[in-house]
């Protein structure tokens, strides 16, 4: 069932209790196909990050189902969800979240390590990835020595380490200038076209629309509308 490759069905998530209870998602259903690029937009507080956390097995819904590679994961325990993340899902963050004490290449090598790649191969593979993203001369730089765009490219390389099929990104260009942002958009598009990744990007940034296959707009924890891109 390719339509269930990645998705949520009737998913609700709320935070807090009693009067402080916030319903972040209200019975949301969204099924994504393999090797597609989906964009989630919407005002802040509309539940975009919460939805991405469901896809990423970082959160279990109060109600409803979550599918990863066609398998329901909403009932799994944290240990089992960790294994799903390790094998299938990678993340790119607005704030990069690189390991501050490690060089660019070691950050990426750690990504390989987390996905169980043998020590002898990690460094070479990390080097290849960084070269591919134009960071061949920054291998030994610590994150503090990199520009925001470079940091995000290192983070993307780390996310791709070990070749997980799913890539989830929350506001990946919000900390970048427009040229760096465009560069990152192009990288994501090529990951879908050339490597067959399934990509979900959450962003306010309307520029993404021209790269995405479909755009879902959230409001108040519900899907307000959807735009199919050509």
């Amino acid at each position, binding site marked *: 069932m390719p339509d269930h490759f990645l998705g949520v069905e009737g998913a609700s998530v709320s935070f807090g209790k009693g009067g402080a209870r916030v319903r972040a998602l209200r019975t949301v259903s969204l099924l994504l196909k393999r090797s597609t690029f989906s964009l989630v937009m919407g005002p802040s507080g509309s539940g975009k*990050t919460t939805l991405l956390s469901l896809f990423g097995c970082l959160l279990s819904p109060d109600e409803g189902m979550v599918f990863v590679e066609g398998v329901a994961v909403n009932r799994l325990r944290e240990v089992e969800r*960790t294994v799903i*993340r390790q094998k299938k899902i990678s*993340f790119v963050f607005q704030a990069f*979240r690189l*390991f*501050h*004490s490690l060089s660019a290449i070691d950050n990426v090598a750690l990504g390989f390590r*987390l996905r169980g790649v043998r020590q002898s191969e990690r460094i070479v593979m990390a080097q290849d990835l960084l070269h591919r993203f134009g960071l061949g001369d920054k291998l030994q730089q610590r994150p503090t020595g990199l520009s925001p765009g470079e940091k995000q490219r290192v983070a993307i390389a780390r996310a791709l380490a070990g070749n997980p099929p799913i890539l989830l990104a*929350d506001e990946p260009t919000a900390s970048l200038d427009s040229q760096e942002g465009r560069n990152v958009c192009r990288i994501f598009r090529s990951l879908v076209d050339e490597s067959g990744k399934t990509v979900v990007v959450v962003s306010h940034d309307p520029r993404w629309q021209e790269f995405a296959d479909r755009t879902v707009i959230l409001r108040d924890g519900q899907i307000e509308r959807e735009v199919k891109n050509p």
Partner: protein
Amino acid sequence: MKLAWQNIIHDRVRFLVTVLGVSFAVFLMVFQGSLLAGFLQAASKLIDASDFDIWITARGVPAFEFGATLESRVREIAAGVPGVIETGRVCMAFAVYRNPNGKQQIVGLVGADPNIGKHFPVPGLPGSGSVEVISPDAVLYDESNRDQIEVTTLPAEVEINRHRASIERQIQGFGSFLGLSYLFTSYRNATRYISLGPERTMYILLRVGRGYSVSAVQQSLRRRLPEVDILTRQEFAHKSRIYWMIKTGAGGAILTGAVLGFLIGLVVVSQTIYANTMDNIEEYATLKALGASRAFVALIVCTQALICSLVGSIVGLLVVVPLVDYAKSLISWVYIPWWLPVAMIVPSLFMCSLASIASVRSALAVEPGRVFRA
């Protein structure tokens, strides 16, 4: 485990403080350990130096230094017990020593029969550091007491309990831990100085023949001589050590120092590791979001503690060994057994596992879901 290592050394000042703290802890532990080992060794040194299997002491004698007299006929009775092939006598008493300049002080006087042991300091025997046979009435002193004995040339005429005595040789390895000097001479000569009549003696040592079990002989001696204590050499040595270490509180004081060292190390390492973990808590969340197992996260935290403990221990040992050597030159009985620095691995590992507990718990507790929220 590059992440663990890099995280630790990224904050150099903190790392340095940790290494210093741990090395101080290891230093204290080894130093106190050497004191303890030396003290224990010194407390039973003379007993261990005897070649005999069984020591007979007056009832309730707690340690070699506090002997009481018993009847000489005990020796004849003991000699008649099957399995006993040789006997010897040792006496020990505190005496007034008057050096050639007329200055007086209290010394411990030890007298022993010449057969007591090759390593036992008795005059008239080859060994005990001397090659030639010297007069059995000669008095020996340990080089560590040279300043108190105050003799410039040998032999030197001195007085012990107002008897004339002749100090003839300096020996090594029998420094006293009591803070007063020991003098060694023959049993016969010593009884003269301390006015021990022929009908009394102090320690009777027995050698058990081949083919006899020491404990069987000990049992039959106990039946024959119910009014005295019959101990194997090891038992008496142990009793003396226990006495000095526990009853006098000296061991407790030393042990407290070692425990203090351990606690200091523990606090320093746990503080560092905890502070480091909290500084990097967001990175632990990232690790978990990227699929790191609980074991991996725990491993990183523990490796950091291990690195701190290890580097600190090495630095501490590098400092302590020359310092103990120096202490040895001041306090003759300080002793650093070869295994003591090696044994530091155990408290160090224990320390770093304890120190990691709180940090591992916080690192494991962090929600991977927070990665999108920072």
